[in-house]
């Protein structure tokens, strides 16, 4: 997604009030943006706390400020600066974290970001974008840039099946239709399930949705999705994020407040920051039972009468 990010920001760089700050990252990716922005492209160095507060200072004077780093360095190290300096003043600084979830794979847990949007959504007025496909970046940058709220963009890598036609961007998108349970995934993880779901017989195939914008308070469920949940009463949520503070709990609160009953619920989530062994993003997804086989086992279990109550 970094190329698409760079292209989208270069297109936006004609705005004289735009400033981009990076925490010494972007080699072999952001050079065109650096060239386009000139002195408004600032390498703030390996000093993320300062970078975020500087961003707040610039935004306070009317600049449109984008901040870029590897995801955990973007939100975890400077969390107090985001809280106090950006959100307490409702400044529309846009934080871009590359490698969300287990995106940095075998690089290890210091580089993973599996509690990022949960933590950030505890802050006032914060918006989160989790683009699903590379093609989403243009719309995500446009929507985040147009928003008066602070925002965090969790970047990953688009993982659509080969030959897949990526649907036009929308905060909620239905990716497969069927008579099975409802499945909702957050961000790029959704792409890993599409092929397997499409191969299921229609009576078992889920109504599969992907969400890109959080929290639900700012991006309520489409009526069609709410109706499907009400009708099916079987729901599975998959997210590359820890259980606490994740999308799953936010969704269940929303459904409870709307009096939409869910009889069977399963949650696939990032189970640990590190396991006994290190490995790729896909390895870590398997360790967390976020992989496609684990998902299919859940769906199979949903299809039995007593099903998921005992697994």
């Amino acid at each position, binding site marked *: 997604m970094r190329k698409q990010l760079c292209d989208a920001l270069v297109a936006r760089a004609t705005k004289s009030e735009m*400033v981009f700050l990076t925490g010494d990252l972007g080699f072999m990716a952001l050079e065109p943006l650096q060239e386009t922005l000139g*002195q*408004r492209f*600032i390498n*703030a*160095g390996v*000093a993320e*706390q*300062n970078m*975020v*507060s*500087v*961003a*707040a*200072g*610039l*935004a*306070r*004077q*009317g*600049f449109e400020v984008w901040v870029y780093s590897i995801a955990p360095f973007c939100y975890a190290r400077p969390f*107090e*600066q985001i809280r*106090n*300096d950006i959100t*307490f*003043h409702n400044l529309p600084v846009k934080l871009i974290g590359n490698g969300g979830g287990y995106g940095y794979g075998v690089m290890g847990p210091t580089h993973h970001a599996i509690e990022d949007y949960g933590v950030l959504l505890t802050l006032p007025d914060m918006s989160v974008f989790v683009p699903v496909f590379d093609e989403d970046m243009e719309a995500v940058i446009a929507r985040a840039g147009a928003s008066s709220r602070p925002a965090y963009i969790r970047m990953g890598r688009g993982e659509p099946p080969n030959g897949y036609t990526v649907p036009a961007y929308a905060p909620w998108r239905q990716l497969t239709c069927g008579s099975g349970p409802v499945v909702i995934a957050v961000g790029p993880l959704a792409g890993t399930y599409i092929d397997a779901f499409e191969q299921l017989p229609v009576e078992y195939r889920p109504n599969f949705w992907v969400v890109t914008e959080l929290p639900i308070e700012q991006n309520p469920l489409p009526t069609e999705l709410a109706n499907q949940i009400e009708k099916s009463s079987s729901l599975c949520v998959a997210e590359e994020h820890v259980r606490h503070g994740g999308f799953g709990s936010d969704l269940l609160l929303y459904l409870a407040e709307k009096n939409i009953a869910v009889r069977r619920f399963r949650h696939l989530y990032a189970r640990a920051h590190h396991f006994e062994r290190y490995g790729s993003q896909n390895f870590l997804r398997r360790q967390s039972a976020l992989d496609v086989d684990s998902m299919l086992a859940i769906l199979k279990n949903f299809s039995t009468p007593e099903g998921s109550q005992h697994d």
Partner: protein
Amino acid sequence: MIGIMGIKTKLAAEDFFAARKRLLQMHFDSGVGHIGGNLSALDAMLIVFHEYLGAEDKFVLSKGHSAGALYTALWSLGRLQDQDLKLFHKDNTLLAGHPPAKGVADIPFATGSLGHGLSLAAGTALAFQLKGNGAQVFCLTSDGEWQEGSTWEALIFACHHRLSNLTVLVDHNNLQGFGSTSEVASMSPLWDRLKGFDAYLQIIDGHNPDAIRAALEGESQRLRIIILRTVKGHGVSFMENRMEWHYLPLSEAQFKMAIEEIEGSHKC
């Protein structure tokens, strides 16, 4: 230089005394401490606000626990009123124990967690440079605050970007929350640590108005750092250089004694 009210107003000795009394009155009325570090910072803040801060300029109080001195300086300019100060630290006030995020136009940022202000000031100064509007930024830090790593991050950034429109004032009163700065985390003297940076460093008596003015008029091709050698609790003898006045509120007897001392020294 044009002051925030649009007129350069050179302060007289009685202005400093009046502000000191009003600060103590406000803290006494509210039963609130943090007086020592307010008294050490007040003189420089008054001079900056009255004599140097233009309409487009910004002042960032990084040592947010000296909010009382900030409110008093704004009161002395007529930007806050007596009725505002009467609510200091009380329910439904704009004037919290640390500078508020909203409601007071002359306060650009909520501060109070140390180590944020210099970065915020650097971002503001960079914004002014990008705009080319010539506006200045003043930032007041404490001396203990230089134990925060983020303050050094900000210093590196400000020097590297040659933020010549940024002036850092350090209220160097030698005392912090639970000891002297040299006992807790010695960098003494702080200015020796700062000398290695590409900044214009001045070390002055932080209670000498003419010395403060001269420092503020100094070279401005680089980041300007002014170490204000100050006395915690300045102007009230029983408070001076005593750590407990980082926290304690005034009793009625202490308040009367402090006011009498200030009035007595003014008459002299």
